[in-house]
């Protein structure tokens, strides 16, 4: 059965949390002018990678990337899947820890971090335990419940914009390419499209719709960066850790009975991020299950969730999150570029082999 809608929603929702929390801050601190260029370069790379990945996966119907790599040989599986496992694991730790930090910053000032992290990981773990179908169903439910709220908050975020902050338009030196925050901004893309390679045996989807989602998400990337810029200006926006969150707390609406609109955005995005975390848990459990087929995947989910939680507890402050993100940079680019390209090349090879056999 065609489940394109589920897949597409999953792909979109998991990115939104990253876009509005981390992407805007990363891009704003990576360059002082011409932010659009930085965004466009990231988006183009993302588009190319997603396209290559799906093109490559198209050569292997009903197979996930684990079996594709295993079929090539043990070395390929180790070479590609081991970094992937590390990347996903670290990403999960960073995500859980960073989002709990945001939650304490914005509203749960007195709640200890471990309680928030435990809540996030238990809920995500529970979703992941029930398998990939339940993750997708949750995704659809969350989209119905929260996407309208997100769209509303985005509309009103334009309240104080001054479009003249768009200038100066160009950064001629491309200096942002060498800045660590710019590399970190790719965290918004990496990780969220990889699941496409895991779900082939379970659900069918049309690549066309995924590419359409990539296009549909483009405005969100621009809004997340440019609305804070238009409101505060670069010099001010770069002093904020989470520009979009500060932006939301400056919105003043008389007729709305709620005083803090930040809360809506935050809570919606946190649910989307839980979805992301559960997806990562599921992916990890799939890979590990293939290595040790005797153990049930659900045990892996619990074990990984526990390991993640313990990992999170070891991070004591924001600087450590930042350095973890930094270490993850190499893995991130390897996973984001290496896996789609290798899958595509393997796909071409497989096609040629079939042709040769046929002839």
């Amino acid at each position: 059965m065609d489940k394109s809608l589920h897949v597409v929603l999953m792909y979109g929702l998991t990115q939104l949390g990253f876009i509005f929390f981390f992407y805007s801050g990363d891009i704003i601190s990576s360059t002082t002018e011409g932010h659009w260029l930085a965004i466009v370069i990231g988006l183009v790379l993302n588009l190319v990678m997603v396209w290559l990945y799906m093109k490559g996966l198209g050569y292997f119907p009903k197979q996930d990337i684990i079996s594709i790599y295993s079929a090539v040989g043990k070395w390929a599986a180790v070479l590609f899947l081991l970094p992937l496992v590390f990347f996903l694991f670290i990403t999960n730790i960073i995500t859980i820890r960073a989002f709990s930090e945001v939650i304490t910053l914005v509203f749960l000032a007195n709640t200890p971090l471990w309680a928030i992290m435990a809540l996030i990981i238990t809920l995500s773990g529970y979703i992941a335990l029930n398998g990939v179908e339940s993750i997708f169903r949750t995704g659809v439910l969350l989209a119905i419940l929260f996407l309208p709220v997100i769209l509303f908050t985005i509309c009103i975020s334009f309240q104080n914009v001054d479009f003249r902050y768009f200038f100066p338009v160009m950064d001629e030196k491309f200096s942002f390419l060498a800045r660590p925050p710019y590399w970190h901004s790719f965290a918004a893309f990496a990780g969220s499209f990889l699941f496409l390679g895991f779900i082939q045996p379970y659900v069918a989807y049309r690549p066309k719709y995924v590419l359409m989602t990539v296009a549909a998400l483009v405005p969100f990337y621009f809004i997340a960066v440019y609305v804070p810029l238009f409101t505060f200006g670069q010099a001010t926006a770069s002093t904020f850790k989470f520009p979009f969150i500060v932006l939301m707390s400056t919105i003043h609406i008389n007729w709305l009975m709620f005083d803090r609109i930040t809360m809506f955005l935050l809570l919606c995005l946190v649910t989307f991020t839980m979805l992301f975390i559960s997806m990562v848990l599921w992916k990890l459990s799939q890979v590990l299950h293939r290595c040790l087929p005797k153990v049930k995947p659900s045990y892996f989910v619990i074990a990984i969730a526990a390991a993640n939680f313990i990992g999170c507890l070891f991070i004591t402050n924001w600087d450590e999150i930042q350095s973890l993100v930094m270490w993850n940079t190499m893995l991130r680019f390897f996973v984001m570029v290496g896996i789609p390209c290798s899958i595509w090349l393997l796909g071409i090879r497989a096609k040629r082999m079939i042709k040769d056999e046929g002839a």
Partner: protein
Amino acid sequence: MRALKLLAAAMMVITLSGCWDNIDINHRVLPVVMGVSKHDGEYLIYLQIPEPMQNTTQIKIVKGKGSTINHAVDDISANLEDRVDLLHVKVIVLDKKYAEAGLEDTISDFMRGRDVSPKTLVTICDEDMDHFFSLVKKKMGPKGTTLYDFFEKNAGWNPQIALTRVWEVYRSIHSYTRDVAVPIIRSGDTTVVQHIGSAVIRKGKMVSQINSEETLLFNAFQRESTQGKIEVMHHASVLVIGNSLEVHSQMDGQTPILRCKLKLKVVILETKEHPTSDMIMKELNEGLTHQFNHMFARLQGSGADILGTGQYFRSKIPRSELKDWRTAFYPKLKLDLQVQTIIENTGFLELS
């Protein structure tokens, strides 16, 4: 497995109930107005707290002292039987002397902390804070929101009052091309507060002052609606019902030039000595232009770009030079304002 699930669900009840370190609302005090002043390196904090009594609300003013704002608030909190929660502070009143010394730290702390919302209004008080708050307490109605309503757009706000929030002051501290005007108030004779103009804040420091009439022009320049303001001249008084602004910027070598056209739509309310409509328009245009030029000369002298004129040159000056907008370009800026009045109607009577 089922038992495990049940256990997990039961544990959720504990963590999800939202009772973590919770302080009930009857044990919290929620100040509406916060006053900040600084004497001899010590912060003095005034909190205006509405206290619900039987059938009515009473206002309590409490005062605390400390080496930082949080220290002072903590001091108050320790002395009060309830915990102070700054989440609902709507107006921050700053001492004028303190504003002149520089607000950067305070404003940055407000932005950093999660308690005071960035959209809290900022005002400056032109008299002794003790005096101000004691008079405010005496005169304020039972609702206790007078100071807030004074600035609220759907309540007591008037177009000659500048409206500035914490985040805007913060932006002016960091922005290259933008400063802010903060309303100045003092306790009134018959009303609770009296508006006497706006403070000109440059990079978080009060450097000059403009009066209410000039604040109206400032608001018009910000494309804020000036609807409802009555302009009185020699021959007539008119009601402003709409305004728009056209701005054209250009660079002449290193000299920035700004040509602005302010269009006002007015309705005639009163006339004296049978003026013609041309006379009224001319009088209004000349009067406002004169007032504006006068204000702008003073602003330029103070080096504070509250009109945000630098914004219009962002596309024309590279960012590395824009950094010095306030010192290198702003003093040289030539601003040419034309006021164009449209008399929309003259009431039931013809102009003779």
